[in-house]
């Protein structure tokens, strides 16, 4: 493995960062710190940096491995098994929704598509009204978002969008639909389009190259290939966290046990794994809310082919969006959706496209001329979009049950219609919704009639998700959520949740910046409480 790009992780390891790959340990371990953080993604990374810069001794627990730019070869066949939960084939209980989540140091930020949006004002307004989160106004959060935008180089992306993205803008413009350009957390991006396979140039300002190295440089310890199994709870406190070391491939427990003790624990495993850890631990849940109201931004996909090449695999993956259909009705009216596009590498495209045999091969022949548009449905704002619930398999691993109501199906159909109309307006020759019974439609008229008739049913209509949120909702009132507005778990005095599972609804935008900003606020509060001193403002640090 060679790469001309300097690898900050390799340099840090050489400089003596405390990183333990648990798959290599030969005996059981017992470690102690001020704070143990479970997860190294958007929530865990920001927390680790702020707490360790506040002078606290931190241990970070990560189920995935430590991979870095020298490992990121932009090959789907390596990236999905190595960097994603369940080889990027994590699914809901009924297998009807495919869920993309990271499982590597940096979590989903290592493999996401860099789209950075502040939490939309109507989402925050809803949280204030319905969940009493009075400190979560646009004004209150603005400094936290600004701080993390600076920390992670979140800026306007000035390079022209690739064809995949510009077609969304062109179609929207023709139809008089508003659209905008997406801000990205990149520094010196090469515009390769491989973000989903780990950034090979370290341009993406993921947790892997920012907050985690900063925490390690402050003396934090990172445990990789370590699965948090359960907290030992006693007298309303978490006494310790019991972990399993995993095998080198991360598939099963190696048999070695790791026991972690701390004054305080932070759960940042993402909105499926965090509730699952708390469920396995028997965390107090008198209102039966833990793991409930888990949201996915269910995603529908519309593929279109054009006379000209689109090459949707090349260039920054997501740079154009439209929020038009989030604002055509009240937030609790018919379900709204955000429009974006998807980078189309061969494996993910071939599996996303329905059908087999000659029909599938014919589609793939048009691969380089294909555009992939996405609609992200904003769940959680209506009684018929209550999200799903996290449960446990017999082996303790998590599974998400996510029913889809007629209300949501109505949005699925409208979103497929919208995308087809935009794609034809942008000059598409054919449009193909990802549905088992859809065929390529040659005109908007034909597509409109056909999509109106398609049966909206699970497993027939393809639904994806890359944004899992909720399940440990914050609420001012204990009847509204298992965590309080400071992210503290009710009934366990020394346990916080710092990740997207805090959100009482979906966000209505790609959630990474919502997690960065809100967790920066919560972690700073926690640092002050634990140290008795004001929290530091995390600034870009020299890595080693």
């Amino acid at each position, binding site marked *: 493995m*060679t*790469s*001309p*790009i300097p690898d900050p992780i390799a340099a840090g390891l050489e400089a003596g960062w405390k990183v333990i790959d648990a798959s290599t340990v030969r005996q059981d371990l017992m470690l102690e710190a001020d704070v143990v953080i479970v997860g190294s993604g958007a929530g865990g990374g920001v927390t680790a940096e702020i707490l360790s810069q506040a002078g606290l001794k931190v241990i970070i627990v990560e189920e995935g491995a430590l991979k870095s730019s020298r490992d990121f*070869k*932009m*090959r*789907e*066949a390596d990236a*999905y*098994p190595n960097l994603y939960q*369940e*080889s990027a*084939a994590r699914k809901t209980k*009924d*297998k009807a929704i495919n869920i993309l989540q990271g499982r590597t140091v940096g979590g989903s930020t290592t493999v996401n598509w860099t789209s950075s949006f502040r939490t939309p004002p109507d989402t925050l307004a809803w949280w204030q009204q319905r969940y009493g989160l009075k400190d979560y106004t646009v004004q209150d959060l603005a400094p936290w978002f600004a701080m993390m935008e600076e920390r992670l180089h979140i800026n306007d992306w000035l390079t022209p969008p690739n064809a995949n993205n510009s077609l969304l803008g062109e179609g929207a413009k023709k139809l008089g639909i508003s659209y905008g350009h997406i801000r990205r957390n990149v520094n010196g991006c090469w515009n*390769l389009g*491989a973000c989903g396979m780990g950034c*090979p*140039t370290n341009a993406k300002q993921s947790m892997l190259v920012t907050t985690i190295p900063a925490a390690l440089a402050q003396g934090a310890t990172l445990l990789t290939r370590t699965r948090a199994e359960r907290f030992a709870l006693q007298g309303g406190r978490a006494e310790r966290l019991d972990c399993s070391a995993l095998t080198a*491939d991360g*598939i*099963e427990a190696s048999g070695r046990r790791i026991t972690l003790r701390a004054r305080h624990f932070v759960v940042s495993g993402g909105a499926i794994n965090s509730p699952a850890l708390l469920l396995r631990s028997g965390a107090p849940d008198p209102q039966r809310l833990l793991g409930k109201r888990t949201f996915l931004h269910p995603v529908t996909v519309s593929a279109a082919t054009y006379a000209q*090449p689109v*090459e949707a*695999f090349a260039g920054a993956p997501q740079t154009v969006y439209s929020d038009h259909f989030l604002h055509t009705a009240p937030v609790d009216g018919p379900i709204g959706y955000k429009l974006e596009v998807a980078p189309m*590498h*061969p*494996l993910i*495209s*071939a*599996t996303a496209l*329905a059908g*087999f*045999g*000659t*029909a*599938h*091969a*014919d589609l*793939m*022949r048009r*691969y*380089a001329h294909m555009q992939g548009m996405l609609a992200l449905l904003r769940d959680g704002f209506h009684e018929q979009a209550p999200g799903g619930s996290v449960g446990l*398999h*017999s*082996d303790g*691993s998590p599974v998400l049950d996510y029913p889809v109501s007629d209300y949501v199906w109505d949005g699925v159909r409208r979103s497929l219609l919208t995308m087809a109309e935009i794609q034809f307006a942008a000059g598409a020759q054919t449009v193909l919704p990802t549905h*088992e*019974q859809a065929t390529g439609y040659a005109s908007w008229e034909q597509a409109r009639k056909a999509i109106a008739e398609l049966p909206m049913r*699970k*497993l*027939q209509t393809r639904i994806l998700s890359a944004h899992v949120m909720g399940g440990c909702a914050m609420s001012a009132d204990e009847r509204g959520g298992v965590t309080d507005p400071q992210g503290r778990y009710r009934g366990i005095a020394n346990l916080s949740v710092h990740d997207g599972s805090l959100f009482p609804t979906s966000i209505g935008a790609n959630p990474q910046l919502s997690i960065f900003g809100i967790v920066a606020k919560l972690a700073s509060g926690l640092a002050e409480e634990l140290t008795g001193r004001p929290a530091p403002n995390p600034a870009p640090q020299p890595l080693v």
Partner: protein
Amino acid sequence: MQRRSFLKAGVLGAMALAAGGALYRQLNPPQLERYALDAGARTIVAVLVPAIAGPVLPQEAAARRAAIDGAVQRVAGAIAGLPLTTQKEVADLFALLSLAPARRLLTGIGDWQSATPQQLAEFLQGWRSHRLAMLQTAYQALHDLVLGAWYADPSSWTALGYPGPLQELSA
């Protein structure tokens, strides 16, 4: 057997199997183990690769054989990377597809190696649109495993017009 009658028998058979399986699992909680594709399962995947990927395989016999072998190997590799609970489900699926009476009932296929393209297409389409969600998910698992394995490989990329990753950074 006519397609319609095997599908009908398939519904009943699959329900009986599902019920039996659920009962069995309740009495014997599964011991989760790694699942490696055995020779029988590899034969099934080898037959399904051209049926699912379609006319994208090389025509020349040796090249075709090698392309199929490579895809089978990558399917095996993809399965090995799944969580153990999912590996168990994949193992159950291949057990079902290997067991002659269940296979005939559910797929209409007597023997994989002598199945015609027409029979394979009918089996796949039958499961794709089956009333039983379990068989739809099984179809989708085969769809994703085979197409994922086929298009993961650089040998498939030229035909797509996909240049592959920048060489300087992917060596």
